């Protein structure tokens, strides 16, 4: 296990902060984001012997983290509908609070797409792969997300982008 852990530790140090930030931008809840990112990396270590042989293990752990985040969002939405509870604790106040709120109003697939595209600079094909959807669907999510964010933030939409 020691050699495996050394190799894994190197990977962890390189990827953990980026994955955490991506999850945080989707959820806007630091503690939840840390829990979910940890869980993704636990699953990665559990399957490390197999996943480390993949061409891009970082895509694997990112996919797991984003899926967990989206699942969490779904649960939270149901819970908030049931409890009518909006008070949130352990929330890191973002600098661009308007953007954070606007992103928070997007459906979860659009939220994940827009974070992967604008924050991680992932190409559409890779976003589609991570979210397990077609590239054309990913494009639609991105387009709708951008249009909605422009409406909410009062900004202009560049029509020449994807």
């Amino acid at each position, binding site marked *: 296990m020691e050699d495996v*852990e050394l190799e*894994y*530790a190197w990977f*962890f*140090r390189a990827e*953990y*902060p980026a994955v*955490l*930030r991506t999850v*945080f*931008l989707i959820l*806007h809840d*630091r503690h939840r984001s*840390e829990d979910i990112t*940890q869980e993704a*990396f*636990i699953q990665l*270590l*559990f399957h490390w012997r197999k996943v480390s042989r993949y061409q891009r293990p970082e895509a694997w752990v990112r996919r797991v983290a984003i899926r967990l985040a989206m699942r969490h969002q779904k649960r939270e939405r149901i819970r908030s509908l049931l409890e009518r509870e909006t008070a949130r604790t352990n929330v*890191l106040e*973002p*600098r*661009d609070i*308007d*953007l*954070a709120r606007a992103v928070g109003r997007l459906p979860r697939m659009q939220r994940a797409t*827009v*974070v992967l595209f*604008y*924050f991680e600079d992932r190409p559409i094909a890779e976003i589609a792969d991570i979210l397990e959807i077609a590239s054309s669907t990913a494009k639609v999510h991105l387009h709708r997300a*951008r249009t909605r*964010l*422009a409406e909410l*933030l009062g*900004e*202009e*939409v*560049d029509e020449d*982008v994807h």
Partner: protein
Amino acid sequence: MSIERRIRDGFEQNAADLHPQVEVMLATVVSRTRRRVLLHRVSSVVAVAVVVVAAVTFGPRALDGLRSLRRVAPANSLHPSVTIPAFDQMAGMYSTTVKAKGVTAGVWTMQLRTDGTMVISAPQSYPGAVSGFQFDLWGDRFRTNAFIGDLCSGLAPGLYRWQRAGGELMLTPIQDDCAARVGVFSSHPWRQRS
């Protein structure tokens, strides 16, 4: 400002304050994974143990159940008007007379019991063992290991087709390499005595 620029800058700013303690997180992840691996192994061992215990506890009962399912009357009887007994109804005392000369010549009685054991009473001239035999029934098949200790030593149990009609039990050999057993069981019908 374009929406593109606004989103990119906003994400950068909002993620900038997030500085995870990577080494602490790494230690936590490794520790939690070890616990999970241990739990996984323990669960696997427990699951295997449960399967083994269940097999030992319930296996024989399940086999008995399967066996009893097989103890049914023959589907294509040659005597449809005759009530064909199931395994329990086969039980009883039967007798036959072997007329051919030899050690098996004479009157034989056979008691078939519901538990699958059979008690044989041989002619006085017969020198072999006559106890500890068993039989089995499924469909119209009758199988027995009679005489396995001497006359049929080293041979497989004999397989017969059985029919009952008019108070007689007829056993027709299907597969039996023991000629003496074939002679006793199938040379003449067995008449039911009780």
